């Protein structure tokens, strides 16, 4: 099977990217911690439609980055299935799987270290395009043309940036180069892991807007991993929001619904933690904070959030609630005592 026919298969079906019961356990090595394990993902289900968006939010250490790495093929998963447009990647050999993973491209947090400082933007884009031209049997002249195309797509002036080195560009421009490089392989999806947190505030929104526009212009879907719910809302207001805690999805639904009406206390804590722009906004009346910080000593028994939840009962500490619909067709949550609380700041 040649690469190009794989591409055709990938594009043909159109179910997008689907994960079912993805499990990942890290085993610690070394002398002191040997044998101890960390459950990074405990059976995660998700679906990103073609050209759609899904956002994963949670604290540091909740497993959201691991999920992104698995999607980009940088990490193996221990159990569950991952399918791209209906093709189950789990059963494929590594050699057959790679072309699929190649079409899921990662946008890293730090554009300063994601680009080789000794190579010009020209060189950075030529390499993947040369490979791409060889795979698809395109002439060499296509490379320069495509280079300019992808740069224009990300809002950069090709004549200005091509001859430059990464250090000659601003953080925002660098991140655009990273995105342009990802686009050289005609990706199915971009995995943006905290893609704007190191970008200057005045340029951040431009990158978010670009990711949103790329969904429309090139039909790429975006998996957005962040701890900042407001940026997730900007990119994927029409997509699903997944709230992940210690490897488990604890609430899920359309982004706007979850923000307007979160019922899980952890989601409420996350939304409460967003700074209030005093003067423009007034804090939500029921702002919540976790009773304790996240610690690796917290029990795996019962609800994973029980140790930090202000409302935990004995039942929460012994029994784990599953993610389920509970009557609402759109919104899923994993809490025995779901309750609406006004935690989001409202305009003054």
């Amino acid at each position, binding site marked *: 099977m040649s690469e190009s026919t794989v591409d055709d298969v990938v594009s043909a079906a159109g179910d997008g990217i689907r994960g079912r019961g993805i499990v990942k356990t890290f085993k610690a090595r070394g002398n002191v911690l040997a044998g101890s394990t960390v459950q990074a993902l405990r059976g995660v289900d998700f679906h990103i439609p073609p050209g759609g968006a899904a956002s994963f939010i*949670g*604290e*540091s*250490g909740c497993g959201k980055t691991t999920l992104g790495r698995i999607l980009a093929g940088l990490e193996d998963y221990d159990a569950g299935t991952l399918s791209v447009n209906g093709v189950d990647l789990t059963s494929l050999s590594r050699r057959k799987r790679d072309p699929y993973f190649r079409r899921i491209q990662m946008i890293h947090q730090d554009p300063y270290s994601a680009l080789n400082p000794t190579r010009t933007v020209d060189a950075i884009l030529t390499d993947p395009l040369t490979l791409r031209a060889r795979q698809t049997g395109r002439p060499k002249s296509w490379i320069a043309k495509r280079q300019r195309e992808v740069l224009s797509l990300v809002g950069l002036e090709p004549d200005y940036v091509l001859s430059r080195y990464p250090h000659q560009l*601003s*953080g*925002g*421009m660098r991140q655009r180069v990273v995105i342009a490089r990802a686009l050289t392989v005609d990706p199915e999806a971009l995995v943006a892991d905290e893609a704007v*947190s190191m970008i*200057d*505030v*005045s*340029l*951040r*929104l*431009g990158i*978010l*807007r670009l990711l949103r526009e790329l969904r429309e212009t090139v039909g790429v879907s975006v998996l957005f991993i962040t*701890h*900042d*719910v*407001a*940026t997730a*809302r*900007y990119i994927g*207001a029409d997509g699903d929001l997944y709230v992940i805690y210690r490897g488990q999805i604890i609430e899920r639904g359309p982004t706007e619904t979850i*923000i307007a009406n979160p019922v899980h206390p952890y989601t409420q*804590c*996350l*939304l*409460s*933690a*967003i*700074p*209030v*722009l*005093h*003067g*423009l*906004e007034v804090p939500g009346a029921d702002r919540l*904070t*976790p009773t304790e*910080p*996240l610690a690796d000593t917290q029990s795996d028994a019962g609800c994973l959030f029980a140790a930090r939840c202000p409302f935990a009962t004995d039942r929460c500490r012994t029994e784990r609630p599953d993610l389920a619909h509970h009557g609402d067709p759109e919104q899923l949550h994993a809490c025995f005592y779901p309750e609406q609380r006004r935690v*989001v*700041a*409202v*305009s*003054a």
Partner: protein
Amino acid sequence: MTAVTQPSEVDGKKVGPAVRISDLTVAYRTPAGELPAVSRINLELAPGSITGLVGESGSGKSTMALAMLNAVQKPGRITDGSIEIDGLGDVVSLAGKRLREARGGEIGYVFQAAQNSLNPLKTVGKQLLDLARSHHVEDKRALVRQAKELLSRMGLSGDRVLDSYQHELSGGMRQRVGIMLALVLNAHLLVLDEPTTALDMISQSNILSIIRDVHAERGLTTLVVTHDIGVVAEVADRVAVMYGGRLVEQGPTTEVLKDPKHPYTRGLINAIPRLTGDPEVAQPLPGRPPTLGTIPKQGCVFRERCARYAADPREDCETTDPVASEITPGRLVACHPVAAGLPVEVSVEEGR
């Protein structure tokens, strides 16, 4: 211990010293000559206030924070101005032993990314004792006790943390260790450089509430340097906005957020995505922040990105660097059209 600045009492509450920064200019020597990263900054920190200094990369905010310690590294130097701290005097004129003692003694400094500012080869406790040695603390037991008290006040176990290496602590914990080390010698002026960068929202909100509480309890004057307006909105009484080495606007936080006057402040606030309302309200700023070499030499430093200038180019914006003028008590804005009493609103709408 070593601090000579003492909190004074106002209405029965302890408050930190007043700080007056006058005409502060810090320049870096570059192949293109000596370029100012901070230009003639005038800023007053009221006793007991929390001031937020906001700016993007290259705005000069970190240089400014280092200048508070008179710790600008070569090839940079403070070329002009003074930083008067009540009870300590002008930091710019301090040198040698007196300066070393003031750093960490009267002025507590929490470094950007506390994760990189702790020594990875020493436990936190060892670093605390280093601090005791460099500041000639006689009673080391009392210092350790004080450190443990501070740590437990911030929700950490003192014994455990002092015995830990930095890699054994989470980001939020390291940040709290940084705050402990800054305050353990009883400093009353606290400077925090990007205290919440690289922290997730819950840790950020936790650190911000610690900053607020510790500030009130210990009677401090606090300067929080950050790129994040949200951080300022949460903790600061007053906000000062920097751009291209200039202070373009300052005033009470709620007033500035509600009714920003300088086009840059306006653009910055407009560029924050929000959780409620129409997401399309958020608009990115055009252009990019200037670097040391690209700061315009003449006229307003912001004009190339200014929606108001784009809509209505004025000559003074091109020729004269606007000085800060007080438009209402406590509100200072460095912008020619604002000083001329022209509305800011219109042009920004047009610029959208």
